[in-house]
């Protein structure tokens, strides 16, 4: 019976298992934590709510919405710039909200208007909250 290297083999086996487990935990943790802060859920919520507001607005309206929660989530998810969070495409009539890096949630609006001067204003809302403001114009296309 050859017992040479027995301890070394056991140690090596365990090291391999531990390394694999470490890689597994390291790769799964960011995904789970990313989902736990609700980036995609909130992106879906904001896209739908803003589309609803646009659908019921008229040319000449100026609208400001409290988006403090969205800006906090985006910051936690390493979105580089607040200008990346909300994007409104007047040609496609859609709003896209990006609160997680690498993906955005888009929702269409049926109101045939153009959304102009859209942007986040930091600290301009009630109690210093961040707000997203935009104006509604007649459709130019």
């Amino acid at each position, binding site marked *: 019976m050859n017992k040479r290297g027995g301890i070394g083999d056991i140690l090596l086996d365990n090291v391999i298992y531990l390394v*694999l487990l470490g890689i597994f935990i390291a790769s*799964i943790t960011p995904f789970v934590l990313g989902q736990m802060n609700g980036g*995609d859920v909130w992106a879906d*919520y904001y896209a739908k709510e803003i589309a609803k507001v646009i659908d*019921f607005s008229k040319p000449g309206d100026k609208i400001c919405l409290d988006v403090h929660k969205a800006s906090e989530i985006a910051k936690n998810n390493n979105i580089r710039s607040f200008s990346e969070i909300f994007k409104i495409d007047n040609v496609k009539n859609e709003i896209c909200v990006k609160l997680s890096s690498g*993906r*955005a949630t888009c929702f269409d609006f*049926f*109101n045939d208007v153009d959304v102009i001067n859209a942007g986040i204003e930091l600290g301009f809302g009630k109690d210093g909250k961040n707000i997203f403001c935009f104006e509604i114009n007649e459709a130019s296309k």
Partner: protein
Amino acid sequence: MNRKGAIGEHISVFAFLLLLILVGVGIVGGVYIFYQSGYDARMADASLLGARARECIEEKGIETLDNFFEKCRLNKEKMEGINIIKICVDSKDCVSDNTGFFFGSNFESCFLAGGEGNKGYSRCYLERFEIGGKRVDIIAGSKRVSRRVLG
């Protein structure tokens, strides 16, 4: 050199890897299902469309139905295949009455109880009001959902 059991040891590493992959797929799948369903905005979309149509008719009159989308500032392309709308004037059964203005089809499915949780079906909103002594029924429906894009 003792080679006994060498293959067996490698197999156990692969088994462990397979186990990790299975656990990973389970966690990712579970988290995905739990967090990704979003909330159902079909009813809100339908009621908004109905309210917009009512407001437009009250403001511009029933004659607006001749050129409904332009006069009411609605984007027909964005509504195609997603929204349905039917406007009946003095009709006894607006759902089956196809004599008035309508856009889209399958209005019968609007009020199927089984369709409520199915995102393939429209959720519908019924708006009823009177204008100039005429009763107007508006059935507006939507099956609009959000979509995820890379970027």
